[in-house]
């Protein structure tokens, strides 16, 4: 699949690895990818702008989310009877505000290789399908964005929230990215 990636798409994935390295993340998820897609030299920044978002703001937002650490799986914890909100509240009482997020960041160790999370791999896979659906030969940064938007992942949720705040939505960004894809 990677041999079908364009230069922009490769740069975005490589950039995500570098973001993980700089921020000492445990793994690479779609938030890392959103940082590089929004600040890259590809077509994603224009698509974001078409939806009233400033690419720099989106990159900063994603970077902040990465810094807050890995996301605890609240849904999986709820399934075994653990209320993450309650655990968080009690941890904050003893250790100060945002304790669990802080603990994740401190817990990270230096790595040589950063694995992609399952949802990031899924998003990359979906980007291939988006390229096929649009009849494009190569996978570029717009297809990566569409892949992120299509999978249920932290990066996609972050974009969804940012779009909502800007008075836009995911459908509008998808349309903008597809239009960019056709124009290319």
């Amino acid at each position, binding site marked *: 699949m990677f041999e079908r990636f364009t230069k922009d798409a490769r740069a975005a994935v490589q950039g995500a690895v570098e973001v993980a390295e700089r921020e000492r993340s445990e793994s690479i998820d779609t938030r890392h990818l959103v940082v590089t897609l929004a600040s890259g030299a590809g077509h994603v920044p224009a698509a974001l702008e078409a939806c009233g978002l400033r690419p720099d703001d989106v990159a900063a937002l994603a970077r902040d989310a990465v810094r807050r650490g890995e996301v605890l*799986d609240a849904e999986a*914890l709820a*399934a*075994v*009877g653990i209320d993450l909100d309650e*655990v968080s509240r009690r941890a904050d009482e003893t*250790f100060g505000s945002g304790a*669990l997020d802080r603990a*994740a960041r401190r*817990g990270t160790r230096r790595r040589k290789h950063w694995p992609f999370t399952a949802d990031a791999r899924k998003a990359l896979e979906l980007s291939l399908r988006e390229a096929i659906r649009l009849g494009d030969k190569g996978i570029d940064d717009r297809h990566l964005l569409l892949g992120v938007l299509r999978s249920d992942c932290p990066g996609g949720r972050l974009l969804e929230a940012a779009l909502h705040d800007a008075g836009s939505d995911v459908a509008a960004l998808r349309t903008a990215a597809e239009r960019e894809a056709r124009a290319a």
Partner: protein
Amino acid sequence: MTEKTLVGAAAGDDPTEGLRAVRALRDLADRLETLQVERARQLGWSWQDVADALGVSKQAVHKKHGRRI
């Protein structure tokens, strides 16, 4: 969360959900361990005290937490 879902996930009816729950628990436990060990050290606990409380060797706890606390 209904009783049925809860039992389903906890009992590992579907391995995907069961393993996901185990992973989330481990992640949460790791974070709480980091916070608790750090606090214990600030309160003057020795590495041996911390190790005894966690039920692991002093070497293990020092290796895991020694560098950042």
